[in-house]
């Protein structure tokens, strides 16, 4: 258990260190938002309607960018071999790594989301944040599956996106749905947010199993 905590804190520390990418991810997120606004035009009414989809898509893209840090960097310098040998249950290692990705790469996005949302004239701020908070763990967990499948490969980054992109469909659908429902006054027990939570919990089970299996075969 303490080994997993140290893996987690090491990954988080690396993410927030200079060149770790936590800040770059947030900057990228901001840039994607600006590009979307260039596409939609500046009318406040129109922006408020597409704000949640823009921010959800931006967060998804930004979280994909940093997936190579989950296993690939450790694989290349050899530390993944040691981690795998030392970890009794590989599934928990995947879980620790995915959670570290969420803290190091997704949480910075959530931190600047209120600023971006305010710039997009979002009035229902809490439902949007709640949807991202509940749904974004699924991005890290499903992303960890993709990272575990592809870490020894060259150009793994592009492959990951086409491999796990389809699996993100429910997250984006329920995430933007929850934000839209919340803006109309739905409570926290409304169906889309519950379904989003279900997707996150489902990923919590599937990701460690699939990720650990993939790591075993990739290191053989």
């Amino acid at each position, binding site marked *: 258990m303490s080994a997993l905590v140290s893996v987690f804190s090491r990954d988080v520390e690396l993410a927030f260190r200079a060149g770790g990418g936590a800040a770059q991810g947030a900057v990228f997120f901001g840039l994607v938002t600006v590009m979307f606004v260039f596409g939609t035009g500046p009318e406040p009414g129109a922006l408020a309607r597409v704000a949640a989809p823009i921010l959800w898509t931006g967060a998804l893209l930004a979280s994909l960018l940093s997936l190579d840090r989950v296993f690939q960097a450790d694989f290349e310098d050899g530390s993944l071999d040691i981690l795998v040998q030392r970890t009794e249950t590989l599934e928990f290692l995947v879980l620790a790594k995915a959670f570290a990705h969420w803290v190091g790469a997704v949480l910075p996005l959530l931190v600047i989301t209120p600023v971006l949302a305010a710039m997009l004239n979002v009035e229902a701020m809490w439902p949007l944040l709640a949807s991202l908070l509940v749904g974004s763990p699924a991005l890290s967990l499903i992303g960890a599956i993709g990272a575990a*499948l592809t870490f020894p*490969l060259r150009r793994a980054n592009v492959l990951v996106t*086409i491999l796990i992109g389809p699996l993100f*469909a429910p997250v984006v*659908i329920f995430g933007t749905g929850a934000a839209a429902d919340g803006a109309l006054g739905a409570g926290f027990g409304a169906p889309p947010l519950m379904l989003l939570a279900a997707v996150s919990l489902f990923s919590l089970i599937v990701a460690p199993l699939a990720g650990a*299996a993939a790591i075993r075969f990739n290191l053989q």
Partner: protein
Amino acid sequence: MTTQQTSFWTRYANPAAFQRLSARIAPLAGGGAVALFAVGLYFALIGSPAARDHGEAVRILYAHVPAAWMSLACYTYMAAASLVGFVWKHPLADVAAKSIAPIGATFTALTLITGSLWGKPGWGAWWVWDARVTSVLILFFMYLGYMALWNAIEEPTRAARIAAIACLVGFINIPIIKFSVDWWNTLHQPASFTKQGAVDGAIALPTWLLFSAYVLAFFWMLLVNMNAELAERRAARLEAGARPTSTLVAEPAE
């Protein structure tokens, strides 16, 4: 060569035994597919009436509906083959899973293309973000991702295991994706275009005939693909085996 105790599974794990069997089955499947296509197309294009509401355009559904069934069936077969390859390390199951993917992707593309052709006269637009259309599009992307993964890993055994994990994760996610897309669609457009009345017998006959033709064509293409894959692997092995003596070790002849 094989003892009588070997089961069906282990006997055809031997590529040579499989290839002997498939050499007998493939022509039957191919011939049957051609015959069924001929009969099915006759009933689809000539032997059936134009639909009351949709006119002659309804005939494109004879190509569309069986392709849509096959697009899902192929992913199911692929997942089953992946599971067998993953759990029992059955080498032919790996080859089968890999060989099904391009066929399934083709059926899915055919579904999307014929659906789009049907959409223009039927719905008035080439593309409608209908729930089923969108789900099939996502399925198409899943096939492409699976094939990209196979292409990215050079070593066949590892590629098979990794691709199997990706396929199975995709397979258990298909119901969730389907449900989410349905939910999304009812949220955005309450009217469903795809509701139809009971299917008339005159329409059912060509549909079933062509579906059977598609199934046989699938088996035929699968066997051809698997044999090609096995031949490719043998060629790669021979090449790898030949290299040390011919190029790397440049010793003078005796």
